[in-house]
Every structure is written in C-alpha cells, then in structure tokens.
C-alpha cells in the first residue's frame, strides 16, 4: 500500500483504521447512480476488496448520473466499465464483478463473502432481498435511495437497529423517475461516510434514524425510527437491544 495516498485521511481514521479499511470487503449492489459514486469513493479510500454487482449495459440516459460510465462506454456491460475505472482510481483495491441479477436464490451467496453491503439498488424488491440476506448473515447494510432532488439514507445493523422492512413495510411502485446526478452524489457520500466510520469505529452511525436530503430547498433533516417487534424480516434475529 502506498501510504502517502492515504495521508490526508489517516489523521481521521487512524493508522490501524486504515489497515482495517484495507482488510475490509464491501459488496456494492448496483453500478448505477448510487453505485458509481459509492464505488469511486470506496476505491479511493483504499477498501481492500470491492465486489460490484450489475447485470445491465450502459445506456446513454445513464450518463447524467452514473459517473463510472463515460460516453465511450455506451452499450458495454456496466461491470466491465466499472472495473476498468476503479482499477485505475486505485490499483491497491481488488475489484470483483458479478454480472448476475440479484434474486432470492443467489442473494445470500453473492453478499456472503463481504463484510458490508452498500444498497445502490433502484427498486425495493431487490432492497428487501438485500435486507433479508444482511440480517440472515449478520452483515451491516448501508441504505440509500434517490428521486429527483431528494434522497434518503440509513444504516442497518442486523439484530440491533431498525431494518429496512421495519421502516418501509410496503413495496412502492416502480418506474422511471427524474433525477440529477448530484442527488446520487450526496446520498452515496453519506453511505460511504457511514461505511468508513463503521469499519474504523469512528463517530456516530445513522442507525435508528432516517436521513433526508432535500436538494429542492437545500435542507438535511432526519426522523427517529424504531425496530418493529413484529417485523417480517428482522423479528427475533440476533441480539435485540432497545434503548
């Protein structure tokens, strides 16, 4: 590892923290609007292994926000485009790519080899699969979602905090929605900050809180959220700790 690369963050994370970042493996579900900036910042921060899953190819309409993919990448597999950029951003990082669509049969296997999961999905059906797998395998899940000028984020520690299903019991309708790339950048930056804090035991996590970024009025706000004792996904799993 070229230490100089991390000179400006080691004062924050500690030398041992930087080693923990190097030893960590992160699964990024999706190489799109959220997955792109997440992967870029995680690679630049020196995460040891990044596994990124996406089954799609680059479409011209992705380019306003999916900043891992450039004009020349249209029609390429997103994972090929992603791997190429990420390896150039930081050769210290091992990049694994998965071209499978995440479904209930493969999700546990796909996330199982990683220490943390970044939710960069574009629909709640897939998010619920990640949520269940995270709980079953006791892997922290860093949720983010975006729409237009607004976004949300929360951190799920299985067995300890409210899970995605506790907060959002119902699957919202799916469809094509308006979005600017910068909204993805804000939310992904929150997710990556949470990941680095979790790995290095720094600061206070966004657990049992749902954060809202509103770019339309330039405000950040939050609400407290609690575990649902009757939650279909997390009830009775792991250590229950109510505060």
């Amino acid at each position: 590892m070229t230490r100089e690369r991390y000179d400006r963050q080691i004062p924050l994370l500690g030398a041992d923290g930087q080693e923990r970042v190097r030893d960590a493996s992160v699964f990024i579900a999706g190489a799109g609007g959220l997955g792109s900036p997440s992967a870029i910042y995680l690679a630049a921060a020196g995460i040891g292994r990044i596994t990124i899953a996406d089954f799609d190819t680059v479409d011209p309409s992705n380019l306003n926000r999916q900043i891992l993919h450039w004009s020349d990448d249209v029609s390429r597999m997103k994972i090929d485009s992603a791997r190429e950029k990420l390896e150039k951003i930081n050769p210290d990082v091992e990049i694994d790519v998965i071209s499978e669509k995440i479904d209930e049969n493969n999700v546990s296997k796909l996330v199982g080899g990683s220490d943390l999961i970044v939710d960069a999905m574009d629909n709640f059906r897939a998010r619920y699969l990640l949520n269940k797998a995270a709980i079953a395998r006791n892997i922290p899940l860093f949720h983010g979602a975006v729409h237009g000028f607004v976004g949300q984020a929360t951190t799920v520690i299985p067995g300890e905090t409210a899970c995605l299903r506790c907060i959002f019991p119902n699957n919202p309708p799916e469809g094509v929605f308006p979005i600017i790339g910068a909204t993805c950048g804000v939310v992904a930056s929150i997710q990556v900050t949470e990941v680095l804090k979790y790995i290095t035991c720094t600061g206070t996590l966004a657990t049992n809180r749902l954060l809202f970024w509103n770019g339309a009025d330039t405000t950040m706000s939050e609400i407290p959220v609690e575990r649902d004792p009757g939650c279909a996904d997390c009830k009775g799993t792991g250590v229950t700790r109510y505060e």
Partner: protein
Amino acid sequence: MIIKVKAFARFREAFGKEQDIELDGTATVMDLLTELCAPHDAHDMIFDESGMIKKYVNILVNGRHIQSLSGIKTELAGGDEVAIFPPVAGG
C-alpha cells in the same frame, strides 16, 4: 392535544415542513389526516379513489410505521410526532 407533523420530500409542497395540528379528545391517524388534508389540495397524495390510504405513503408515529401499529386507526397522544413522506426508491 397538539400533534407535531413533519413532512418530507415532495409532500412538503402540500403540507409544509412542519406544523402543529390541534385535535380534540381521542383522535386517530385518520382524524389527523382528515384535518391535514382539509385546508390543502393534498387529499389525492394520501388517498386513492376508493378513499383508502395509499399503501406506499409512509406515515410514522414516533418512529414506527403505522402499519406496524394499528394503521389509520392508530390512536394519537398529545406530543406525538408524525412523519409523512412519499416513497423514494431510485438508485
């Protein structure tokens, strides 16, 4: 009793950022929504054509989704904080 209502994302355009709603006696989430939607043109954001609450509208009372409580029949107490926001699902 006074209930604090906080709205997020595009619901802010209809409900404002934060408001205190005064309700009489024992009141439920449904009473609150009726009161909330009265002065606004916000009814269609919350309810479908049959007058049922849209399933994907998120309403949390003190951090708990009403679906995990008693739905729109969930009883409110003075000082409760109700958060209301649309789904944000993109990535």
